[in-house]
């Protein structure tokens, strides 16, 4: 299973879809599978400023917990409200309905630092 090629990735298994100044962020299928049944996602409120590589939230499964790291510096414009009632969307549709936050990116040049699909696949394959 390879990661979608239209997205960018962090080494901490977040994905980013850049659309103009806006970026949508979630976690990869690989990360969701590793965590198992996700039961809770804690996300920042809209308006909060995020700094690249710093934690912005938490994702919990039945037996594990993981911090979420901001892929880019920017401010949160929207969070996926559906995840509070349906955290399992992260498992069932990580790149779609399981998205987590949207941010207004401070500097689009930063996206160049992120991995592309094949590079992320290599990262996962290397364990």
């Amino acid at each position: 299973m390879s990661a979608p090629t239209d997205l960018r990735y962090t080494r901490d298994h977040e994905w980013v879809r850049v659309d103009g100044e806006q970026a949508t962020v979630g976690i990869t299928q690989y990360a969701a599978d590793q965590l198992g049944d996700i039961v809770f996602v804690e996300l920042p409120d809209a308006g909060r400023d995020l700094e690249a590589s710093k934690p912005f939230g938490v994702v919990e499964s039945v037996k594990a917990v993981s911090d979420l790291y901001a892929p880019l510096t920017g401010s949160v414009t929207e969070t996926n409200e559906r995840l509070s009632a349906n955290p399992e969307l992260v498992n069932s549709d990580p790149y779609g309905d399981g998205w987590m936050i949207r941010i207004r990116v401070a500097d689009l040049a930063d996206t160049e630092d992120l991995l592309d699909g094949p590079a992320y696949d290599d990262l996962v394959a290397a364990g």
Partner: protein
Amino acid sequence: MPYGPHTPADRERMLTALGLDSVDELFADIPADLRATALDLPPPEPELELSARLRELAGRNRADLVSFLGAGVYRHWTPPAVDQLLLRGEWYTAYTPYQPEVSQGTLQSIYEYESLIAELVDLDVVSASHYDGAAATAEAALMACRATRRDRVLVSRGVHPQYRETLQTYMHGLELEEIPRVADGDAAGTTDLETLERMLADTDRPVAGVIAANPDFLGLLEPMPRIGELAHAAGALFVAVVEPVSLAVLTPPGTYGADIAAGEGQPLGIAPQYGGPYLGILASTDALVRQIPGRLVGMTSDLDGKRAFVMTLRAREQDIRRDKAASNICTNQALLALAASIYLATIGPHGLRDVAATGAARAAELESALAAIGVERIHRGPYLNEFAVRVPEARTVHRRLIERGFLAGLVLADAEPDEPTVADGLLLATTELTTPGDIARFVAAVQEVLSGRPPVGVETGAGVEEPTGAVGAAR
């Protein structure tokens, strides 16, 4: 070794299987210079002799005194069913229900405990239990700080002094301030609301939580709804410290708007045992479910759809979240939570009300009998089953009453040396175990002591100044 199964032949067989001559070889990895010197302990003691030793030690305690001591720990009638059920090995020799398929007994009992306490406190979420009332109160304070992202907590001086000391220990690095008591008047002894309001008004230092107890340490009923309003108006959470038996008859914390309830569950069928093990009650509103520390058990189903119970929201806990856990708590007090549940199930809602109301009735009898001999309450406000009286030379009187077979409550100067308003006070509690006869004999003894007469047939000892002197006679 008294409880081991291995015969010399068994040990030999195991060593042979391992290709070893001696068990010492299995300890060869301990560096020679770090090996222990021999254990300098008494030789093994056969059960027969050990039981005599234990009986003798227990006999040196004076558990025979007619007691009016409460101060956070209360004697109650516990139906023998409670202890007989606790002594089933399936309960007390099991461990944390990590494997739910073979732990449904413990899991369901914890779920039922959570439900029973939720009814008592009128809140939604009850942790599977903490160490004791003091530790639960400390966890409540930390919880308030996490939930509000503030670091200043106000605690009423009406909260048990040992709970306040515990808070001090747990709250290092955070700010803990005490709300004074009202000095005089009708509200004397209770939380000073005007000062509280002023403390909350300091907006540069926003308050995470306000902690008050009902009944408070002195037995007084506190203006809990008002304290809650003041706390909420300042954006702080309200933590109520409660005594569970009283909740059969007193307004529960959920009803007067408390966000968190903490308290000591000992009165629910648990013996005093000189300090523990007890049962720390910690409960909160649904909104705080992810902030509450400690185990939680929930209802779910198995693969066949059968109803079953399981530890849940585990990701808050230390074994998963490690340094980011809500608390380092690992075990709860499962066996004590079980005792409390069996007690509540056996005694029932009407029984619990009778327990609380009888204690209150006896307290009123005690108050008027003492007033009749000139021993008056220190405070005027309402109380349930515990109150403070003013007695000249309280410590000496207390001591003289022990000689007469009475434990005259608590010498308040020992418990709160920094509280001049109760300097010559005794804190007296009654429960359903207090009989009218106890009260009559006690009051007569108090009168005797105050009038300076020696007890019948007993020489008064010297050394009444210090509470720890002449105890040689007890040995």
